[in-house]
């Protein structure tokens, strides 16, 4: 890979040890893919996780005295204070989370602690080159926004945010953004829950590629797109997709395939979606708690929860959680949604991912969620999977099932 004089100096340590480490990683990636050069990026999103590997790299950069050169947002870890008041989270695990969050602050990241930063804290533009890790974020910004990103790891995205550049390879090059598989959707897609099931099925079936979906007549809304992205990039490695007519980059199927023929054609009906739901649900026993917000709930979803919980009470033998971003919670507070949910006995919690040690109290419990991704990475024993309305109904229901 050709490096400019300044990039060479970064690699040789002239800009400090932290910048050097970030550059070393980007050069290794660029060389692996035979990238010709580095290109500037507008922003980055690091899928921080609060795990040991994450801690090692971000502390290496922070201790090396470097800072992000472009806006770089962060993924949720967990709200340490909130959970420590409630559960007995192991001290060493909490210490890792605390150090991770502190190190991201030291490198000057946007402390969004949100897995949907593209909605409010760090919004890519159409045609902008960026480095966005996180399962929903990568396909969302490529497909819905029309920005350009590869399927980054937390560390490669952070390194790109530090340097303000990324190697030019993969989805940064237009010819590599062509469709690979044609998906004919014959299933009825009522809400975001159906889109999560569709995403799970598509990701699992094609594994790796750029699906082109046809047959979707009603334009999908924001929440439906977020959930399709999150799921297809969890069960598979789907960095980009097309829904010609609904997504920005290609208005026809032909354009999406850039003239090539699809490698494979799949039809999805209601049967496949029902099977996915059954496969992911591990029990039909009564749940001990409901956990919503994987990916983080939007304001619209929180409003829906508040509407469903209005004037009701969560059962004494259950607890009820909604995870969202701090930004969204400010508006949920102002709009009265948080108040309604809390009055019913539910919690609205910020900065928190469902895959964190803070959920230790539920290790042996049955959890109910509307998120296949949440069920897949669960920190609890058994999972029930259902649409939001059914989750709320189970939480306020009088009788044991």
């Amino acid at each position: 890979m050709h490096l400019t004089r300044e990039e060479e100096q970064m690699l040789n340590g002239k800009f400090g040890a932290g910048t050097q480490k970030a550059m070393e990683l980007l050069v290794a990636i660029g060389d692996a893919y035979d990238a010709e050069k580095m290109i500037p990026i507008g922003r980055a999103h690091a899928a921080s996780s609060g795990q040991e590997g994450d801690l090692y790299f971000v502390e290496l950069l922070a201790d090396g005295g470097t800072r992000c050169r472009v806006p770089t947002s962060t993924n949720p870890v967990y709200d340490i204070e909130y959970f420590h008041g409630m559960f007995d989270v192991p001290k060493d695990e909490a210490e890792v989370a605390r150090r991770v969050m502190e190190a991201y602050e030291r490198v000057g990241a946007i402390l969004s602690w949100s897995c949907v930063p593209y909605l409010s804290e760090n919004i890519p533009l159409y045609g902008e080159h960026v480095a966005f890790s996180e399962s929903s974020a990568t396909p969302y910004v490529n497909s819905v926004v029309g920005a350009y990103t590869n399927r980054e790891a937390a560390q490669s995205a952070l390194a790109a945010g530090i340097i303000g550049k990324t190697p030019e390879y993969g989805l940064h090059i237009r010819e590599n953004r062509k469709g690979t598989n044609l998906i004919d959707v014959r299933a009825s897609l009522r809400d975001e829950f159906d889109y999560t099931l569709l995403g799970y099925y598509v990701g699992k079936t094609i594994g790796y590629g750029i699906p082109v979906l046809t047959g979707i007549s009603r334009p999908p809304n924001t929440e439906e797109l977020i959930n399709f992205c999150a799921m297809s990039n969890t069960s598979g490695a789907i960095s980009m997709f097309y829904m010609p007519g609904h997504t920005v980059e290609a208005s026809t199927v032909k354009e999406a395939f850039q003239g090539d023929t699809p490698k494979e054609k799949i039809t999805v009906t209601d049967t496949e979606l029902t099977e996915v739901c059954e496969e992911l649900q591990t029990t039909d026993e009564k749940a001990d708690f409901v956990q919503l917000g994987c990916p983080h709930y939007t304001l619209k979803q929180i409003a829906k929860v508040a509407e469903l919980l209005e004037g009701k009470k969560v059962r004494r033998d259950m607890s009820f959680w909604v995870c969202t971003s701090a930004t969204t919670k400010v508006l949920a507070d102002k709009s009265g949604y948080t108040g309604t949910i809390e009055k019913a006995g539910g919690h609205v919690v910020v900065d928190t991912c469902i895959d964190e040690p803070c959920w230790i109290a539920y290790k042996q419990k049955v959890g109910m969620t509307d998120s296949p991704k949440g069920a897949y990475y669960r920190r609890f024993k058994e999972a029930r999977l259902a649409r939001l309305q059914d989750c709320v109904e189970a939480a306020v229901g009088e009788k044991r099932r």
Partner: protein
Amino acid sequence: MKPMKTSLKCHKIIGGYGEGEALVSHEPICFYLTDPKTGIVREKTHELAGKNIANKVLVFPSGKASSVVQIDGLFKLASRNIAPKAMIVKDVETVLIVSAFIAKVPLVDRLEKDPFETICTGDMVKVDADKGTVVVEKLKP
């Protein structure tokens, strides 16, 4: 008996030198699904299930699974000094590169011959990523 020695060119991804006994997997590997204390593959349906990847030269097609778990998995092995000594792959992807970088495990691809035809489990393999060479010693003819 004198071992048969083959020297092959390769392409460096993550530099360094590592040597050890080869362990070949025809399936992609997720490091999170190995026991972090021993290096034994825990994924029940995997062809390496029950085998130990600690200190081996690992030959496999590519990585798999989400970036968070893959990187953490290899990092945990490395922090106990039981990561593979080197890794030879066919297809690289960003997550595997980051994993090897963080765990400081030499990683190469583009062997001049198909690694699955030239290397067998049990061969002694020396990977010099910086020089771009892989030396395979076969103890059995």
